[in-house]
């Protein structure tokens, strides 16, 4: 076990999987000579050469599409998109091709590839560089979706993603890149998709945090315990497809309350989806309506004070939890 940053954990996963399997290669904008916009791929060009660490032009749709073609014919590409906002330029290849081809051709072609991209607000990058769009990708059948929030998960899930035969959308978070955590040194530190992590046990309320919000939710839980004597159980689903709904439902059966926290927009969001699933499958367990804490329903503003109130922080989560205890 070693303490490393989230970005270094991702780097380890890429390095180990490239060492393990010749078919794994990287494509993306400024991932090589520049070492990656967020330094996730630092040093890999030096180690593996230009054949396997490929700097691309700024052509997101084609980068992803080339990954699809290469995956169909024997390789295991890992494509980096500089941020999730730019992935919208590749939406056709991700949705109409990557996610669809296995089904559309009756199971004849596999598309074993990973598309990595970071998301998230907090760096004053304004309305085209700050959004959290995991809900868009959750919407699409035919691919898997990971949203790791710790360094250990980042490494273990990325290794699992690279080894899986399905296409995977792998959403990192810009804020988390610099965060440190314990990461196993083990080459086979692989975390299966579809297994939620219980970050903190508690009997009073279930708080589900998505991506960076799993971290924020844990901090809010500490406040709830200290200031309100409420013990929150914090769950990080880690992957949204497959989703470990069982762990969430078991927790709700115990706590009878659920609050979902996400950084993305409210309408058609991950929380909306989870709230529907919980009320469909655990209606009788609930003592209060399922609550959601989400990013504000607007394009992310640049101005620092505005940006700060446009995505969730601990106080909003605390308030939402307290509201589930008030008389209805």
């Amino acid at each position, binding site marked *: 076990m070693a303490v490393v940053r989230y970005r270094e954990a991702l780097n380890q996963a890429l390095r180990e999987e490239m060492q393990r399997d010749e078919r794994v*290669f990287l494509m993306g904008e400024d991932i090589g000579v520049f070492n990656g916009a967020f330094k996730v791929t630092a040093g890999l060009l030096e180690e593996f050469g230009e*054949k396997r660490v*490929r700097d*691309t*032009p700024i*052509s997101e*749709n*084609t*980068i*992803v*599409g*080339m*990954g*699809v*073609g*290469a*995956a*169909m*014919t*024997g*390789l295991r*590409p890992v494509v980096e998109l500089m941020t999730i906002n730019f992935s919208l330029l590749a939406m*056709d*290849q991700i949705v*109409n*091709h990557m996610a669809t*081809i*296995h*089904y*559309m*051709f*009756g*199971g*004849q*072609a*596999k598309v*074993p590839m990973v598309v990595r991209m970071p998301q998230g607000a907090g760096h004053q990058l304004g309305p085209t560089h700050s959004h959290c769009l995991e809900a868009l990708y959750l919407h699409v*059948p*035919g691919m*898997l979706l990971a949203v790791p929030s710790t360094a250990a998960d980042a490494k273990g899930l990325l290794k*699992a993603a690279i080894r*899986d*035969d*399905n296409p995977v959308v792998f959403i990192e978070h810009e804020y988390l890149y610099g965060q440190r955590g314990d990461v196993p040194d083990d080459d086979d530190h692989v975390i*299966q*998709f*579809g297994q939620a992590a219980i970050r903190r046990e508690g009997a009073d309320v279930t708080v589900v945090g998505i991506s960076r919000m799993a971290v924020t939710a844990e901090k809010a839980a500490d406040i709830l315990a200290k200031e309100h004597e409420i013990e929150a159980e914090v769950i990080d689903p880690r992957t949204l*497809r*497959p*989703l470990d*709904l069982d762990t969430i439902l078991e927790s709700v059966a115990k706590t009878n309350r659920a609050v979902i926290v996400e950084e993305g927009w409210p309408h058609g969001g991950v929380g909306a989806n989870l709230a529907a*699933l919980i009320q*469909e*499958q655990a209606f009788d367990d609930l003592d209060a309506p399922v609550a959601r804490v989400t990013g504000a329903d607007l394009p992310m503003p640049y101005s620092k004070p505005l940006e700060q109130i446009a995505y969730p922080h601990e106080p909003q989560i605390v308030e939402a939890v307290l509201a589930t205890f008030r008389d209805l």
Partner: protein
Amino acid sequence: MADVTQEAGTGQLPEPDAAREWLETMMLIRRFEERAGEMYAKAKVGGFLHLAIGEEATIVGACRAMRDDDYLISTYRSHGHALARGGDPDRVMAELFGRDEGVSHGRGGSMHMFDLENRFMGGYGIVGGNLPLAAGMALASDYQGLDEVTVCVFGDGAANQGTFGETLNLAALWKLPVVFMVTNNQFGMGTALERHSAVTDLHRRGDGFGVPGLRCDGMDVVETHEVMREAIRRAREDRQPILVEAITYRFRGHSMADPEEYRTKEQVEEWRKRDPINVFAERLGLEDDEVERLDGQAVERVDQAVAFADKAPFPAPESLYDHIYVFGDQVQGWYSVDERSAGVHKGEDERSLAEAERGPTEHYHQAVEAASKEDVGEKKPADEAQAEDEDAEEAEDQDEEAEE
């Protein structure tokens, strides 16, 4: 203008056996397309149906210039490519009929044919969507040290998609062995070439990306073959992409839902005089009897395909969710990725429960019953809006009948 080819009709003929096989394949495609159109009019085939009648020389010329281990990737007008690559006409027709034995097991339909065994890597419904895939396939060949070439077919309309510029640039930059073949049938759906492209010499549009261009007469199978053979050779040996423009013409509408108001009957008649099958048969100096005999073979083969497709079973209702995911440690069944409803989704039970617990299966049986009738419906109307209107009216009629 970049490299220009010789005058039409002067290309070197292939060996007699090969020439005959080319002619037979073009005839097979022609007759297949005609019957597919008839089956569409009978509502045996649904969705969109884009026929390649008139474009047969571009298909056979390209496919016969390829090696078996080369990859071909095409568009939504791809029945001919599936056939020319060696696909079984029975299974191509069965796909149009939406049957389980179709080349894509009834998941793809007319626009999405696929045949891995013959390295036909698919027809694609998104205009320009296949260009990046082709470059990726060429990259995989290159990466693995294999000398395969990928041939990527698309239409003149796709030359205006962003993927055209993105992919040509990347393919040239990375020296990928891919031949981009634009079958310029002179219309992007109903918009004429000169109304959709500022530069109408499409083979010149690679110049700015470092992709040399060749042009051929796409109504002449010999010339198309010759130019494609040269392009494929250069891609394979010189490790570089090439753009080939084949000038052609589709004799039928863009799809079956096309009233063809954007061009004149006279223009169509002019091009029909250059019918690639007639021109090639004449060039081979075949007697009329012989042409008729070969054509009869094609008709017979297609009849057989229709009979096969019509008898073939539909995919079973419980197979609805098959092939969404590749199963393994992380995804043990589609249900492990799908949590929408309580109870039913918790395991393999789903397959057997589907019939009992899913209301809509009654629609499945209605559709199967309707498809088994000899002549299911009236000839489909000529444009899409009208088709939708009539579908809506039909649904209303059915509702009224149900109420009665």
